[in-house]
Every structure is written in structure tokens, then in C-alpha cells.
């Protein structure tokens, strides 16, 4: 029996549920010499803004117990250069391409989305309303239901691509935000982005990151991510893409059980660049061994009573 790993968001089919997370995989090229990109369910680009952004001064990252902090500051080439310089490479791949969009105002999100509209090679958009590392915009949109609604609604009105809303964990009730973006027309939600965190260079009495605070990711946050996916799955009908600390096949399966129909690998790419394709293989093997016909049959199958 060859198990069916395919999953879908709206009308878009993915060959398997494994995506690589925004900001951890550049624009795809870098990992191309190490792994076969076509084996992935899809690639999510670094967040794209309207204008190019230099990002924050170094130091931008540091390690914490079983995790890491980053404050890259949305370094990116801007939407025009993205289309010209980065998309051609991505377009040639036989995997789904998801462009992650960020902005400081609803207008900026709309402008980026309009530029991307109809461009060949793009399959979906992921709207980052949850970046903890920029002052204006980003997380501000994701932490209040009203602004999250407004942003996703405006994006939906200006694109024909299916839209994934990427949610922030730095909120009292992530399921509530998921519900409003579902109402605003989001085709899926992805969670979680990073948790706001901070580390101190004790020797010099300085923050370890130039931006003082940054976003926490990696195995340390996995319990938080799992709880949020599970809670959100009790509320929304649209597909959930789970991420946060996934490092291996078992982690991925846990997110599926909790209610995610797809997963993303972020920090895991740094620890083992082959991690994502190993998980694709691992899921397949697991389904074969357990005689699971469709990977979708596992989604939400956690026994809570």
C-alpha cells in the first residue's frame, strides 16, 4: 500500500503536508544544493515587504535553552526585486510556492499583494500578521481581533491566491483570532510565529540582541505551539498549519494529532538541513507501517477522553 500523503488548502493540492517556514529557508536557493526541494510539500519564502528592508543591526540571533531568539527585522529584497530575482528560481520547482507577506500598514499588505497578483509560480500567500520584530505593523495586527480581521479582509479583496493567516502566539486567546480571520476569509491559519523573548549578555550588562527583544523558536516552544494548535482546532473549520519546534517525524505527527493538517519546519532546518525531507519520508513510513491510507486520517485524532 502506498499511503496518500497529499493534503489540500482550498483548491490547492500539496503532495505532502510538510512545508518549510518563512525566514528559515531564505528564498529556497540556499538549501537547493543539500536537499531535493521537490520533495517538499511547499516552500514558504522569507517575509516580503513593499520596499526592500535592511533589517536590524547585529547581533540578530542567540541561543537559549533548547531554543533560539531572532530579531532579523524582516530583511528582504522588497516585492519588486523578489519577483524579478527570486521568483524565477522558485517557479522552476515542482513544489508549492507560498509567498509570505508582511507590512507596516494594511495599505502596505495590500500593495504587496497586488504586486504579486497573478504572478506565475506563486500558489498561495501567507500573511504574516505576527512578526514580533518590527515596531510598526507585524504583531500589532495579529494581537487584536479587529486589526487581524481588517488586514486579512483587505488582503482577500485584493488577491486571487488562497490566503493563509500566520498568527502570533503572544495573545490571550489565539483561537479567537483564528476565528475572526476565518470570518475575514482566510483559507487557512498557520501557528505559531515566535514568542517574544529576550536574553542578556551578563558580562556586558547588555541585551544579546541589538533589538533588545526577539522571537523565541525551537523545541522550547513546542509545548506552547501544540496547545495553541489543539485549542484552535476545537474552534475553526479551515485547515490549520502547525509549527513551533518540530524537529522530527514524531513531532510532526503530534501536531497532526492535535489538529494540524499540515506542518512547517523552521529552526529544524538549521539544526539539520535534511530535517524536512526526512520528515516527509518518516510520515510515509509511519503510514505504511500503521496501514494508514491517507495522512488526513490522523488529523485531530488525539484522544482527550
Amino acid at each position, binding site marked *: 500500500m502506498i499511503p496518500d500523503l497529499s493534503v489540500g488548502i482550498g483548491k490547492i493540492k500539496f503532495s505532502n503536508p510538510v512545508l518549510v517556514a518563512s*525566514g*528559515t*529557508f*531564505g528564498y529556497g536557493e*540556499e*538549501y537547493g*544544493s*543539500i536537499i531535493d526541494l521537490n520533495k517538499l510539500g511547499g516552500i514558504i519564502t*522569507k517575509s516580503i515587504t513593499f520596499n526592500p528592508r*535592511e*533589517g536590524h*543591526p*547585529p*547581533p*540578530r*540571533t*542567540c*541561543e537559549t*535553552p*533548547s*531554543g*533560539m531568539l*531572532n530579531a*532579523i527585522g524582516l*530583511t528582504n529584497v522588497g516585492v519588486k526585486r523578489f519577483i524579478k530575482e527570486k521568483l524565477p528560481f522558485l517557479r522552476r520547482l515542482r513544489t508549492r510556492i507560498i509567498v509570505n507577506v508582511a507590512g507596516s500598514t494594511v495599505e502596505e499588505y495590500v500593495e504587496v499583494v497586488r504586486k504579486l497578483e497573478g504572478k506565475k509560480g506563486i500558489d498561495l500567500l501567507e500573511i504574516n500578521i505576527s512578526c514580533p520584530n518590527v515596531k510598526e505593523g507585524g504583531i500589532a495586527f495579529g494581537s487584536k481581533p479587529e486589526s487581524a480581521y481588517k488586514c486579512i479582509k483587505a488582503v482577500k479583496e485584493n488577491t486571487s491566491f488562497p490566503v493563509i493567516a500566520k498568527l502570533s502566539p503572544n495573545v490571550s486567546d489565539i483561537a479567537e483570532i483564528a476565528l475572526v480571520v476565518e470570518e475575514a476569509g482566510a483559507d487557512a491559519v498557520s501557528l505559531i510565529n515566535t514568542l517574544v523573548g529576550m536574553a542578556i549578555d551578563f558580562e556586558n550588562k547588555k541585551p544579546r540582541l541589538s533589538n533588545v527583544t526577539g522571537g523565541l523558536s*525551537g*523545541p522550547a516552544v513546542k509545548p506552547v505551539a501544540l496547545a495553541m494548535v489543539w485549542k484552535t482546532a476545537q474552534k475553526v473549520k479551515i485547515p490549520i498549519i502547525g509549527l513551533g519546534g518540530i*524537529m522530527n517525524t514524531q513531532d510532526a505527527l503530534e501536531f497532526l494529532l492535535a489538529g494540524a493538517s499540515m506542518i512547517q519546519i523552521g*529552526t529544524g*532546518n*538549521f*539544526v*539539520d*538541513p*535534511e530535517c524536512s525531507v526526512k520528515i516527509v519520508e518518516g510520515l510515509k513510513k509511519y503510514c505504511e507501517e500503521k496501514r494508514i491510507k491517507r495522512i488526513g486520517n490522523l488529523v485531530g485524532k488525539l484522544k482527550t477522553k
Partner: protein
Amino acid sequence: MRTKKIMIHKDEGLILSVESLNEKLFKLKIYSPVFSLMAMPGNFCHLKVNEESFPLLRRAFSFHRVEKDKGTFELLFKVVGLGTELLSRKNPGEKIDLLAPLGNFFSFPRKDEKIVLSAGGMGIAPLLFFLNYLLEKKFNPERITLFFGVKKEKELILLDELSAMRIKIHLATEDGTIGFKGRITELFYQELKERRVKLKNTMFYACGPTPMLKKISDISKKHNLYCQISLENHMPCGIGACFGCVVKTINGYKRVCKDGPVFDAREVILD
């Protein structure tokens, strides 16, 4: 800087030996034919010190010595934290997960050029590889000058090997036990000012702690030296994907892992 399209690989190396040079300095010998063939002086490898999630990220080390015929290479490293501590406790026969060769590498001088290398502490690690590489390519040792500075005498390693190369060597120790008393940059600058180091037809190279490289960078800007320096930074991915390891340059932020680690000293803005 000359670059070529490098193919990055993952390989499982076999640890052949872990030798302690003093209580903090270690030499790790790894069997990995593919990387012993591919590594160029200045390139580094990114390795996982254990299989657990703590420490989580890979650690970067310069290729220090390469024996193509034996399929081996060596790393020279200093224990500064948990990752290097765990690395120093490895045993022969263990496997190690390697990602390499990463980054660009030192440009090679023309046969008629002179070269001056400055190594501060562990900075000797990649420069020794570079020296051996040049000598193997029949570069005239008389055209080579090495400045080598450390804090304390016992950190002055590899001296026998360096002496045997018949290159010109200037030593500096901060406590003054051997050679010049003070920092290597002071010695270097003194020699430069007194014209004992000629600028014409000379290529400069430096590797060491950031404060040292900052001084070298300042000197290079002031005297318009063509000096290549090898930088270090925290490196989550090591392959240019995360933009976590940037350094400020006159051309904007650049990734140390991919656009470097070797940079023109006049280009970078360190502080």
C-alpha cells in the same frame, strides 16, 4: 575576492582522534574524504556537537589542516562554552554530523607578490591551512611573513611546524614571556609604520578575535591595504538562508556565512 559556486554537502564524519594541546585547546581529526577534497583555506564546516536539543544549533569551525590522500581533516578549537566542551569530550570512533564546505575562501597571491598574515589566538587555525596550501603550491616561503599573537605563552602552539616552514615569524604575547610584549596589532602596526613591512605588491590576511580585526580593519582603511580578514559570528543556518549572521559593511549588511567569512578589511564596519 574570487569565489566559485560551492556545492554544500552533508556528511557523517568519523572521529579519528581528539587531542588536547592544553586544558582549553583541542585538535579534532575527522575522516571525511569528501570534505578533505573540497575544503579550501578559509572555508568552514558547521557541525552538531550532540544529538539533543541542547545545545540546539550547529557550531562553526574553520578547516585547520587537510590531508586529501588520507581523506581526513582537522579542526583546532578552544573550549569556550557548552558546545565546545562537549566536542572536546568526543571519543574516537564516534560519528559527527557535518555540513561543509561553507563560506568563501582566501584569495591566492600571485607568485610575485608578498604576503603578510596576522593571527590572533585561534585565528591561527585557518591560516595554518592557508600556509600549508601555499607552500604545497610552491609559493616561495621567503615571501611570507606571519604575525602570531596570543595572551600567554602556553597558547603559542604549532611553533615547531611554523618554524620548519622557513617563513618570517613575529611573535607577540600579551604577558611578554616570548617575543613582543603586547598585542599582535601593536606589533604589526609598529612594523608597518617603521616600513619594515612593505605595502607594495603585498597581500595581507588576518584572523583572530573581533577587537583585533577591528584594529586591522582601521589600519587597512587608513593605509589602504588590501587585507582579507576572516570574521566570526553566531550562525544559525551557516548557508545564507536566515540572515542571522550579518556584519555591517560599506555596502550594507552582509552575511558572514555566505558572503564571507573572508572580507576585504576596508569594506567591513566593525564595532
